[in-house]
C-alpha cells in the first residue's frame, strides 16, 4: 500500500525541503521504495539538498507534458538505490501544472513506489494547491515562532478544507536552552496552539546547515540529534512506535529523576 505524503508549512524557510529530503532518505534507509517529488516549480531546491543537481535531465513538467517517460525523469539517489527524485522545472512557474495533472502523476507514481514525498512550496497559491492535490497525508512543519505557527494554522485549515484531516506536526529548530529560559515556545505550547498530533521534533543543529550545503541529508548521520530525530520520524511514518526524544543539554534534578524512573515523553 503506497502513500502520498505532502510536506508543507505555509511560511517559507522553516525547513520543508530539508525535512522532505531527510524523511525521504530515512524511509529509503528503512528499505522502502521512495520518490521525492519537488512541487516547488521555478524555485527548485530539493535536488540541491539531495546533491543530485548535476544529474537533472528531465523534470516533472517534461513528464506531465509528455516530453519524456516517467522513468527517464526519475533520478536515482547516490546512496540508496530505492530512493528517487523527480525534480521540479526551474524555467517554468507554478501555473504550468494543474492539480488534476498532479493527481494523475501521483496515481502513476503510486504504482511504483511505497512512499511519495512531495515537497510543497511556501504560500497558499497555485503551487500549494498542486502539491496537495494528490496527497493522502500531510506533514506540517513549523518552527516555534508565532509567524510560522500562524501560517501553519492557516495551512492546517486549508488542508482540512481539502479533505486532508489528520495532518501531523513537526516542530523544527527547537532550542532547548531558550525554551528553558522561557524565551522560546516549547513543543507543548505549539501543540496547544495548533491542536494537531505531533510526529516529531527536530532540535536546532548547525550540522543541518553543513549537510545541506554538502548535499548529504543529515539523517545519514544518526549520531547527531537532528539526524536521529529525522530517522525517528521516518520510523513513525512506517508505523513504528518510537518514543519522543528528550533534547537536554544537561539534566536537572527533575530530568534525572524522570530518566531514573524511565519516563520518556
Amino acid at each position, binding site marked *: 500500500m503506497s502513500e502520498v505524503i505532502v510536506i508543507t508549512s505555509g511560511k517559507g524557510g522553516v525547513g520543508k525541503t530539508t525535512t522532505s529530503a531527510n524523511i525521504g532518505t530515512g524511509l529509503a534507509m528503512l528499505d522502502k521504495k521512495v520518490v521525492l517529488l519537488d512541487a516547488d516549480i521555478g524555485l527548485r531546491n530539493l535536488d540541491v539538498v539531495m546533491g543530485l543537481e548535476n544529474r537533472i535531465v528531465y523534470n516533472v513538467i517534461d513528464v506531465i507534458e509528455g516530453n519524456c517517460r516517467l522513468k527517464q525523469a526519475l533520478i536515482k539517489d547516490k546512496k540508496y538505490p530505492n530512493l528517487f527524485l523527480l525534480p521540479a522545472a526551474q524555467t517554468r512557474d507554478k501555473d504550468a501544472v494543474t492539480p488534476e495533472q498532479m493527481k494523475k502523476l501521483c496515481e502513476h507514481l503510486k504504482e511504483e513506489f511505497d512512499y511519495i514525498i512531495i515537497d510543497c512550496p511556501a504560500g497558499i497559491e497555485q503551487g500549494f494547491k498542486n502539491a496537495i492535490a494528490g496527497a493522502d497525508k500531510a506533514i506540517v512543519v513549523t518552527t516555534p515562532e508565532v509567524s510560522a505557527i*500562524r*501560517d501553519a*494554522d*492557516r495551512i*492546517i*485549515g*486549508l488542508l*482540512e478544507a481539502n479533505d486532508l484531516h489528520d495532518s501531523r506536526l513537526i516542530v523544527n529548530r527547537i532550542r532547548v536552552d531558550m525554551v528553558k529560559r522561557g524565551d522560546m515556545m516549547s513543543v507543548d505550547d505549539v501543540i496547544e*496552539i495548533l*491542536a494537531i498530533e505531533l510526529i516529531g521534533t527536530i532540535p536546532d543543529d548547525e550540522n543541518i546547515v553543513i549537510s545541506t550545503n554538502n548535499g548529504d541529508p543529515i539523517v545519514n548521520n544518526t549520531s547527531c540529534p537532528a539526524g536521529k530525530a529525522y530517522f525517528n520520524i521516518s520510523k513513525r511514518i512506517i508505523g513504528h512506535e518510537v518514543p519522543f526524544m528528550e533534547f537536554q543539554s544537561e539534566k536537572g534534578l527533575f530530568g534525572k529523576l524522570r530518566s531514573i524512573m524511565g519516563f520518556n515523553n
Partner: protein
Amino acid sequence: MKDAILIKGNKYGLTIIINDQVDFSTIKDALFKKLNDSRKFFGSSKVSLTFEGKILSTEEQKTLIEIIQSASDLDIVCIIDSQLELSQVLEVKSVTSPTEIENKNTNEISNVSSMHIEKPIKTQIIPENAAIFHKGTLRSGQEIIADSSIIVMGNVHNGATVAAKGNVIVIGKLNGCVHAGKDGNATAFVVALNMSPTQLRIADVFGRSPDKKGKKIISIPQIAYVEDERIIIENINRNIYENLNYIN
C-alpha cells in the same frame, strides 16, 4: 384488578399514577393507605408531585394533596403537570391559591403555590433560525458570518473571524476576531470558555487584546457585553443571565 394507585419515584420526586377506572373515593383511600403504611419509607424529604393516569380537577388535586400531607411527612415543593415533559418543567399549574387553603397545612401549601404563582416561568418561543452551530476548530483564515447568532463548538484560533448579527458563543478558546451584533445591535454579547480574542467588537464598540499579554490565561468562562459604550468582560455567574436577550 389493577391497583387504584401506583407511586413511582422520578428524578424530581414522586409520580402518582391513578387508575382511571376507579372512583375517586377508592383512590383517596388507597392513597392514604399506601402512604400511611410506608410513612417511614418516604420520610420527610422534599418532593415534587406528578399526577398521571387520570386528569384531575383542581378540587380533586387539592383533596389528594391534603391526603398526602396527612398520611405522610413529605414536604411537597411543587406539583408538576404530567402533560409536560419532566425535563422541561416550565410552568406549574396553580393547584391551590393561598386563600383557598385553610387548616393545619396552610403554611406548607401556600408556600408551594405562592412560589409558582408569583413567578411563573414562561416558555420563551425561540425562533428556529436564532443561531447556527459550527462544529470544529476555526483556524487562521477561516471565517463564519451569519445573520443569526453563532455557536462555535471548538476553538477560534488567531486569524479566524466570527461575525454575527446576534450573539457569539464559543464553547472553547476564543483567540481570533469576533464581532457580535454586527448590524449595530449593542445588546449582543459574546461568551467564551476562554476569552482572549485578538479583537472583540460588539455593534460599533471595539476592543482589542492588551499589548502586554499575561503568561498564562486562566480559563474561566466569561461574557463580554456593552455598557456605556464600553466593552465589559466579566466572569459568568448566575446573575448575569437575567439581562441577556437572544437576538434574531
